[in-house]
């Protein structure tokens, strides 16, 4: 069927008229803060306590906009006759946000969870030099980093937690097995067994970088448990 001539024109008019009756969907930004999606890339925060000056971020940065200066300090031996150790001390950590292209590779690549995305985006400056954020400013951004979202309930258990839990279960089973013949021991092994899950719990869900640094803490029960395990087995 041939369309009526001019029907397309009328349809165009109808569309604009219908749009006019609807509310506009402009975000009134300076008055109303935008609803940013989770994982928004605003600015990069530095959790400098975690930084070991490994330089991975600076080397991987495609724009070469991360500046790190550091020096080595020797730490005296902990025990008499022991070896002196050297330690990296951070002198300068700066990110030039006038060069940064917000790829996030530095954050991906940091093995010690020292860099994080913050959703703050209002740091425009009138002088381009001001866009180089030094270490203290980057540390300030760290306070604006939101807690990471909780794990999906159906997600696979994180590896560290799974390992710790398995070790704890094994220890408990061993403790229970040894507890049967002698009566007095369960008290001792019974206290050590619940400790392991209690130690893993805070590191596992819902805490961010500083908390996640508990992750290195989680394996500690694991070496501890085999220690108690043979002890229990031999007892």
């Amino acid at each position, binding site marked *: 069927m041939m369309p009526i001539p001019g029907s397309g*024109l009328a349809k*165009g*008019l109808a*569309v*604009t*008229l219908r*749009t*006019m009756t*609807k509310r*506009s*969907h*402009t975000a*009134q930004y300076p008055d109303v803060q935008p609803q940013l999606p989770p994982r928004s890339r605003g600015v990069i925060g530095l959790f400098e306590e975690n930084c070991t000056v490994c330089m991975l971020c600076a080397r991987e940065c495609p724009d070469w906009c991360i500046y790190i200066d550091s020096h080595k300090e020797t730490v005296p031996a902990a025990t008499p006759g022991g070896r002196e150790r050297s330690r990296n001390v951070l002198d300068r950590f700066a990110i030039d946000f006038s060069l940064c292209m917000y790829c996030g590779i530095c954050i991906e690549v940091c093995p010690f969870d020292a860099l994080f995305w913050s959703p703050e985006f209002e740091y425009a400056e009138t002088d381009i030099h001001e866009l180089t954020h030094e270490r203290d400013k980057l540390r300030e951004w760290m306070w604006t980093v939101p807690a990471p979202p909780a794990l999906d309930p159906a997600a696979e258990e994180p590896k560290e937690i799974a390992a710790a839990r398995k070790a704890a279960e094994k220890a408990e089973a061993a403790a229970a097995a040894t507890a049967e013949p002698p009566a007095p021991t369960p008290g001792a092994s019974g206290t050590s067994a619940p400790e392991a899950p209690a130690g893993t719990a805070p590191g596992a869900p819902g805490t961010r970088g500083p908390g996640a640094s508990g992750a290195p803490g989680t394996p500690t029960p694991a070496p501890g448990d085999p220690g108690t395990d043979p002890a229990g087995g031999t007892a």
Partner: protein
Amino acid sequence: MNDVLDVALRLIVVFAAFLVLPLVVGQTEHKVMAHMQGRLGPMYAGGFHGWAQLVADGVKFAQKEDIVPANADRRIFQLAPAVALLPYLLVLIAIPIGPGEGAIGQVIDAGIFYVLAVMGVGVLGSLMAGWASANKFSMLGGLRTAAQLLAYELPMLLAAASVAMAAGTVSLTGIVASFQWWWLPWQIVGALVFFTAGLAELQRPPFDMPVADSEIIFGAYTEYTGLRFALFLLAEYAGIVVLCALTTVLFLGGWQGPFGAEGLGWVWTLLKTAILAFVVIWLRVSYPRLREDQLQKLAWTVLIPLALAQIALTGIVKVAIN
């Protein structure tokens, strides 16, 4: 002495309308256009819904430097905006907004003739601007403007001639006075042709090919800055007011409404003019710009035959009635 006072008062009223109504249309355009595109439109100047936006625009234009290009034809270049704007003021004087002699700037017996002749002068402003700028883009824009305005002058005149035939007079007041409701279906084709051609005369989208800011960078007005550019813009909006008022007077019965024809006549005129101005804005939002050849084709192969057909129909009905 009383006559002088009377004339002065009428001129002041017409001048006030000439300054205020285009601003109202402009503000309406800001808001209507925005909402038709799902935006807000200027919201900040002046507080409530940005009512002072156009005033602020005016202040901004007034602050800007008035530049005349070195090689431009100085006098002509500076006169062009006035030539573009003034005809609309002169037309506004002759448009009746209510019954009787009190509601018109000046009764002119050959009203249609005067109005269309004076509106034709506006073209000269664009041509002067395009030529005097001594710039190939302005020149191109000016020539395109001339081509467009020549093409659309004809259907506009023919459509207006049809109404004059129907009323048996060329006086604007006479036409409104003899308007009957059944003229509406009878003259509808002429009305559409007149309105469309008028839009093209104003170089409003979708007929803004000569000023196409993205293609030939504002056509004839490329070199204009500050207040002179603002005058060209004002001419466009004053043109909308004049075109809508003229269409109201010629085709929609002017001050005649279902009720209150005597006292409230001017309200009907203003209301119809406002609705037509809304349609002008609506068309701008809805349609893309026509190409040069499409533009010419529409004028010569669609509008002019339609206008001629309308004149033929008017003649036949007129003879049949008599």
